[in-house]
């Protein structure tokens, strides 16, 4: 049995999950902090 397809699948899932989580968390943070700053400026 060639192990490399299994290795690639495991690495791809891990890296994709990590990138997805990092970008999603970053985007949510930016959105929330921008909205918080905007609302602070409102009278």
């Amino acid at each position, binding site marked *: *049995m060639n*192990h*490399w397809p*299994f*290795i690639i*699948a*495991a*690495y791809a*899932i*891990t*890296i994709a*999950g*990590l990138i997805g*989580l*990092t970008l999603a*968390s*970053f985007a*949510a*943070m930016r*959105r*929330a*902090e921008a*909205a*918080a700053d905007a*609302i*602070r400026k*409102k009278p």
Partner: protein
Amino acid sequence: MHIFANPNRFLGIARPLTPWLAWGGVLLVAVALASGLFLTPPERLQGESVRIMYVHVPAAWLGMGGWTGIAIASLMQLVWRHPLAAVAARAVAFPGALFTAICLVTGSIWGRPTWGTWWVWDGRLTSMLVLLFLYIAYIALADASSDKGGSSRVAAIFGLVGAINIPIIKYSVDWWNTLHQTASISLTKNTIDGSILWPLPIALIGFSLLFGAIVLMRMRALLAEARIEARLKRMADA
């Protein structure tokens, strides 16, 4: 202990720290995985599949570490009423769940060419799956609490009680006959040859730094949403 109670002090540290953790983590993970793919030898029995260790083991540690963090934060919330504790616990939940899922999936992928099966209901695999279910339940409970900054005591109690599963997972391979191997690395011993072992600590540190960055980003988002809610409330009351 209460130095971070004022969110501005926390944010004053979290804001500059986040990119360092993120980029440091990305760098170390890249080095570790490239090393694990190209620079290490195969294992005498498992062949090339041993390279899956460099993603599976960090995912397992962080999945378990995440719940440990939730338990400690829950304790701080319930005993010391620390205002950031609930925010921290909520921020850790989804990342911890994701790493647990990655551990289960990469473990299954590793199991097929080595053990000859994608899954078996042994003590280790079953208790890790239970951890994933606990995370899902915790996320549901925490989301159900109406205010974002807020301290749902039910979620905190659940976070604390759920910690019972962590020693179960750890000792499952010693307590029961399992297909999963016993621990190769512990405080007292290491049974992985150096030529195969060396990228693993780099991977562990890298994934942990990245986990830290993600948790800080999620905490900052929760705190910002809490500020928005508070401001809207003040504006409505005015």
